[in-house]
C-alpha cells in the first residue's frame, strides 16, 4: 500500500474511531445526569423537571457526532486488520445497561427500582445477545479483515513500457480486447462493421490501443479478405 494512502486511511481510522467513542462517552455521561434526577426531564409543562443545563446539546452532539465519525471509520478507515464498525452498537447498549443497573440498585429516591433493573436486563440482551448468535467464523469475518493491498498495479501506462513490453502486452491483449467482439458482430452487418472500425480508430487515436493492437484489431474486423485484396 502506498505510504500516503496508508497515512490518510490511518488518520480516518483514528479520527473516526476516537470520535465514535467520544460520542458514546458523552451519551453515557449525559444519560447518567438524567438518571441521577429520576430518569426523566423535559420542558413543555408535562410536569417533568427541567433537564440539567447543556444535557440536550451533549446528547445530540454525542449521538450525531459519534454517528458521523462511525460512518467515516466504516467508509474511509483501514481495510485490513481489526474492523470494529459494529462495536459501537453493543457498546452503546451495554453502557446504558450499566446505568440502568447502577441506578436501579441505588435510585435517587432510595430503595430498589425494579423497572430500571428490568430495563437493564433488556439492554444487556440487546447489546450482548447478538454476539452469542455468531459462530467463530462469522466473528472473525466481522471483526477482522484479511484484505491485502495489491503488491503492484495491475496495469502500467503504455508510456512507461519498453517496445518489447509493448509488443508483449499487445499480444496478450489481442484476444481479450473489445475489438474481438466487435469483429464478430461486424461480420454479420456492414453497418456494424463501419461502427466497429470507427470505434477502434477512436480508441487508437485516444491512445488506448497501441499501433500493433490497432493493426490486429483492424485485420480482425476486415477479415482475411482485406489482406488478400491489398
Amino acid at each position, binding site marked *: 500500500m502506498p505510504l500516503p494512502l496508508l497515512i490518510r486511511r490511518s488518520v480516518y481510522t483514528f479520527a473516526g474511531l476516537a470520535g465514535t467513542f467520544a460520542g458514546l462517552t458523552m451519551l453515557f455521561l449525559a444519560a447518567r445526569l438524567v438518571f441521577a434526577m429520576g430518569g426523566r426531564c423535559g420542558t413543555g409543562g408535562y410536569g417533568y423537571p427541567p433537564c440539567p443545563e447543556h444535557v440536550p446539546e451533549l446528547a445530540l452532539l454525542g449521538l450525531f457526532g459519534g454517528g458521523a465519525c462511525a460512518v467515516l471509520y466504516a467508509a474511509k478507515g483501514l481495510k485490513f*486488520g481489526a474492523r470494529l464498525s459494529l462495536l459501537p452498537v453493543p457498546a452503546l447498549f451495554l453502557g446504558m445497561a450499566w446505568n440502568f443497573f447502577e441506578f436501579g440498585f441505588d435510585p435517587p429516591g432510595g430503595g430498589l427500582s425494579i423497572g430500571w433493573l428490568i430495563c437493564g436486563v433488556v439492554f444487556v440482551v440487546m447489546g450482548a445477545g447478538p454476539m452469542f448468535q455468531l459462530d467463530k467464523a462469522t466473528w472473525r469475518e466481522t471483526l477482522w479483515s484479511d484484505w491485502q493491498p495489491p503488491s503492484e498495479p495491475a496495469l502500467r501506462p503504455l508510456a512507461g513500457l519498453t517496445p518489447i513490453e509493448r509488443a508483449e502486452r499487445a499480444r496478450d491483449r489481442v484476444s481479450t480486447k473489445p475489438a474481438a467482439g466487435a469483429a464478430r458482430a461486424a461480420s454479420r452487418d456492414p453497418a456494424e462493421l463501419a461502427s466497429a472500425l470507427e470505434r477502434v480508430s477512436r480508441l487508437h487515436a485516444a491512445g488506448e490501443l497501441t499501433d500493433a493492437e490497432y493493426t490486429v484489431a483492424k485485420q480482425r474486423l476486415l477479415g482475411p479478405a482485406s489482406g488478400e485484396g491489398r
Partner: protein
Amino acid sequence: MKRTTTGLKIYSLVLQAAAILCGVALGVVVYRWIMG
C-alpha cells in the same frame, strides 16, 4: 512481505486501541467542558 503484512495488522490493532482510549478521554474532556 509476510513480515510487512503482519506488521501492518499489529499496527492496525494498536492504532485502533489507541483511538478508542483517546476517544473515551476526549468524550470526558468535552463533557466537562460543556458542563462547565
